[in-house]
């Protein structure tokens, strides 16, 4: 278990939108979430990461009241959850992982109906709907039924729906899963605009490039626990290194190289016929030794390296 010094900040800070203290969830005897604590600050985008079954969705569902907590404390904008869930939900917008658009209704009706659940007056709802459909480039599909929308259009409509109540907190559970690059970029662009406007976001995603792009701070979960949280670049530098060498070669070659890298204060990892070296300092002098190897590359360490480092390479199939 890796602990991280930045995690020590006071979770009851004044401008926290969400504070979670020692939150746990048991399903029978299985512990899905194990005493996690974190806070989401006003205006930030917190990336929530972890392999499948790590407890991310369970944690988010506890914030939303879809899963009852076993112990611990949750406050959203000062409101105790689940006691004041109804008031809290008024201030939250959610883009769920699975499409829950109303297929019986048109694009526009989806937003108007959702607005009615928030008791938004009809006139305000109409204006807001038009505004959101414009923002998400859906205005010309206003009267379309949901079935006729593409995957990207559905996701954008889910985002528009999540914003219908002008939420203080936007929860995004895998907002671009299954989309083509064009559709993802359009969504990222809109999310970046929202972030600039100061919308507080909680984002889960398996696409680490997405998280790196959008989140100022990340929290990594595994086996129901928080294994690290902090600013991605700092976490990567402290826990992984600055550069990564990926080298292919024979076992003998890689053995020798591994030794050299270790002398240069780099952490190494062997994977069949591949050597990974995570450097802490300048090891460029070793590059001369790599000229004869089958293939090699050097790249900056990224969030994916951090993720693998903290949660391992083994598959999680629950």
């Amino acid at each position: 278990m890796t602990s991280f010094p930045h995690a020590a900040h006071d979770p009851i800070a004044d401008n926290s939108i969400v504070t979670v203290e020692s939150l746990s969830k048991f399903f029978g005897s299985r512990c899905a979430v194990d005493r996690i604590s974190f806070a989401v600050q006003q205006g930030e985008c917190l990336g929530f990461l972890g392999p499948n079954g790590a407890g991310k969705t369970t944690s988010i569902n506890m914030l939303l009241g879809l899963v009852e907590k076993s112990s611990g404390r949750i406050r959203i904008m000062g409101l105790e959850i689940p006691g004041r869930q109804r008031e809290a939900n008024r201030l939250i917008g959610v883009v769920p992982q699975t499409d829950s658009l109303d297929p019986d209704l048109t694009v526009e009706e989806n937003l108007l109906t959702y607005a009615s659940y928030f008791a938004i007056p009809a006139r305000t709802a109409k204006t807001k709907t038009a505004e959101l459909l414009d923002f998400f480039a859906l205005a010309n599909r206003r009267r379309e039924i949901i079935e006729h929308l593409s995957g990207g259009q559905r996701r954008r409509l889910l985002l528009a729906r999540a914003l219908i109540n002008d939420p203080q907190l936007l929860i995004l559970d895998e907002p671009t899963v299954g989309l083509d690059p064009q559709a993802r970029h359009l969504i990222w662009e809109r999310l970046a605009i929202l972030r600039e406007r100061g919308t507080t976001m909680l984002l889960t995603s398996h696409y680490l490039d997405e998280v790196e792009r959008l989140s100022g701070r990340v929290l990594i979960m595994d086996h129901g626990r928080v294994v690290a949280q902090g600013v991605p670049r700092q976490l990567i530098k402290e826990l992984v290194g600055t550069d990564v060498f990926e080298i292919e070669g024979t076992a003998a070659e890689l053995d020798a190289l591994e030794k050299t890298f270790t002398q240069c204060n780099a952490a190494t990892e062997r994977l069949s016929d591949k050597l990974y070296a995570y450097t802490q300092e300048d090891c460029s002098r070793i590059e001369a030794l790599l000229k004869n190897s089958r293939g090699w590359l050097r790249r900056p360490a990224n969030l994916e390296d951090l993720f693998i480092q903290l949660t391992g390479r083994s598959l999680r199939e629950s």
Partner: protein
Amino acid sequence: MKFFRFRTLWLRNSRVWRKHFMATLIGSLGQPLLFLLAMGYGLGREMGEIEGLTYLQFLAPGLTASAVMYSAAFETTYGSYTRLSLQKTYEAILMTPLNVTDIVLGEIVWGASKGLFAGIIMLAALPLFGVWPSAWTLTLLPVLFVSGMFFAAFGLIMTALATSYEFFNYFISLILTPLFLFSGIFFPLQSIAPTARIFFELLPLTPTVTLSRMLCYGQFSEPWLLKIVGSLLLTLLTCWLSIVLIRKRLIQ
């Protein structure tokens, strides 16, 4: 009023319903009207009077009550189960200020409204068969609505327990069809042996059938207040149970 938060779900359902108006209308009225035609007109001409009514007159109010039952129960089984599982409508609504109780009340009141609508259409069609309901029939409408609430809540309990659409076959074959046949719609319960009759009288559709017939023709031969109070209590209990079970299904 805060209690009426569920009306937004009712409005959502009615918005969808208006799009499929004809299909649902024929779906919920086809069967009772055909029964009335075949049994009342076809068979009834050969039969003597029952309780001073022609067989067609005898059948008509009970079939109205059955139309309410089918319409309400189908809405909160097939309809609600689709919203619960396939469409994830409830999950989406739970992320708004509405909670499980609001959803369940919205669905029950909606199912009852659909049931009442089917009942009204049925009553309106009766003069076509030469059956003229009395002015008391207006007081029948709240009775039909309560019965609709009961069967909507009953259907919702089935939805909470269902793992697939096939599950509703049990509900239809083992509960709705026997109720349709043995609640005094087709034959008078007075002629049955007293011990067996108690069982038939306690079936949840029976009081509605009896009240329908009484109010339709303005005859007050049975203990109507007891039947009304009994139906109300049973309906409240069923609504409460459906809230408990749907909550268990939606919240882990």
